[in-house]
């Protein structure tokens, strides 16, 4: 399967990365090169093989349901580009 300029625009939109129109053809070529190389994985017979999500065997641990953190609003907001009245501030979300 080959990536088109239209696919690149769609991926960029999904990834929330603004891509200038003049950069699209170059990215299309690069992604096709990399994805074309990756496609050799299709030749591996994986019948009956379970996908490996983690090298860690077993299950996730339980922990006590207790508050272990908090009262650090100033620390949480310290690196915000825009913090107002104890909140993260962003441009308007709804037109």
């Amino acid at each position, binding site marked *: 399967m080959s990536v088109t300029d239209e696919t690149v625009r769609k991926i960029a939109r999904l990834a929330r990365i*603004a891509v200038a129109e003049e950069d699209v053809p170059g990215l299309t070529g690069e*992604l096709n090169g990399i994805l074309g190389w990756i496609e050799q*994985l299709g030749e591996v017979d994986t019948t009956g093989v379970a*996908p490996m999500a983690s090298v860690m065997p077993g299950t996730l641990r339980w922990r006590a349901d207790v508050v272990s953190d908090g009262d650090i609003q100033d620390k949480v907001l310290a*690196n*915000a580009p825009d913090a107002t009245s104890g909140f993260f501030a962003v441009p308007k979300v709804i037109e």
Partner: protein
Amino acid sequence: MSLTDLSLTEMKAGLDARSFSAVELAQAHLDAMAANRHLNAFITETPELALAQARAVDDGTRTGPLAGIPLGIKDLFCTDGVQTTAGSKILQGFVPRYESRVSANLLRDGAVFLGKLNMDEFAMGSSNETSAFGRVISPWKASGSDADLVPGGSSGGSAAAVAARLCAGATGTDTGGSIRQPAAFVGIAGIKPTYGRASRWGTIAFASSLDQAGPMARNVADCAHLLTSMCGFDPLDSTSLDAAVPDFAAGLTGSMAGKRVGIPAEYRLDGMDPEIAALWDAGIAWLKDAGAEIVSVSLPHTRYALPTYYIVAPAEASSNLARYDGVRYGQRVQPPGGNVQDMYAATRAAGFGKEVQRRIMIGTYVLSAGFYDAYYTQAQKVRALIARDFETAFERCDVILTPTAPSPAFAFGAKADPLAMYLNDVFTVPASLAGLPAMSVPAGLSASGLPLGLQIIGRPLDEAGVLDAGLAIERAANFTARP
């Protein structure tokens, strides 16, 4: 002889014997850093912090097995009150209000932090050319040439700083070879422990199922000291291993008697550099002389490791890096009159470099509807087969010996094609996918006078076995070359 010429182990002994003070040791390294700024190994230097920590060691209020040892910290580890960038413009000015578990462990043990080390942006690279803070230059030159060479990546600042004697040791992180390949390129040792040994808490994420911290230092024993401190169970990392951490340095013997060393046939690639092949053969002979039995093993899915990695790692990266949106931390770019979506897109376009954008887009693509099974699920299945290959091989051997990288360090711009760069990780990526401990040890020089490394891969949780084989190679290779 300068204090910076001592190994970490020798510094420990010298501090214990009060042959010199922690302040003298820290100052010697700060002076070396100031004299070597052209290498661009550090993004942030913290001389005041280092001297304050060293004074506390000298007055006895700061103690521990690493008391007074001057270290560099890769700029991927969050450090409380000290800028942490991951080599990215998007995190320029980010000052964490907490300490990563790994760096906290080193501080607990008395280490002195000299500063934050340069790296490929978000650890994505094999040459340190993708850092937003400029490339790191290797202290090494090829014989008869004055051309600057890459230090490897992504832990290139760590590698250059340790090789140039700017710090006794450094933290690195390894997702597909980012500790081992740069260690090999600059003639130092580096080990990536078993996945889960070192906590990922507070270490900026690239690919969470692969990321693992580890030490880089000038010899195997130095690495062992740092590894013991860095590792340990952490309830704040859901994949942290609840396993006792031995004192790796105390247990180090270098003995190979009764050990079986596996040589994987599939690593002898067509067109392999004859120098690399010769070094590998030398390594086999050294371990045999040290008492090991050499056995052939097969890792049949080796050739699929790189394409598997370049699906799994970008997929996880595209998810992990979604958090950089200009809201909670880091840089924000607000187009005039734009809404919040415009702000996200502009922030990420301006904040991420080309390689990071490329990998986020590949990850987004392979995870998108209609392609998920063909790419991502298939990669996870092949990953299972690669891990199974190692399990089968380890029925016949205790450790596996391979070259670390297919070539010595190359020049800047030599691998402008992303695929050519990716192929440089051919020998390191399989162990990462299987979560196995692996280390690189300097083993010789190329005809061009540049360091070459050998890689030892071990069974899960057998860092001790990896370090012993590493020490056996270190003793036999007697690598004394310096930049």
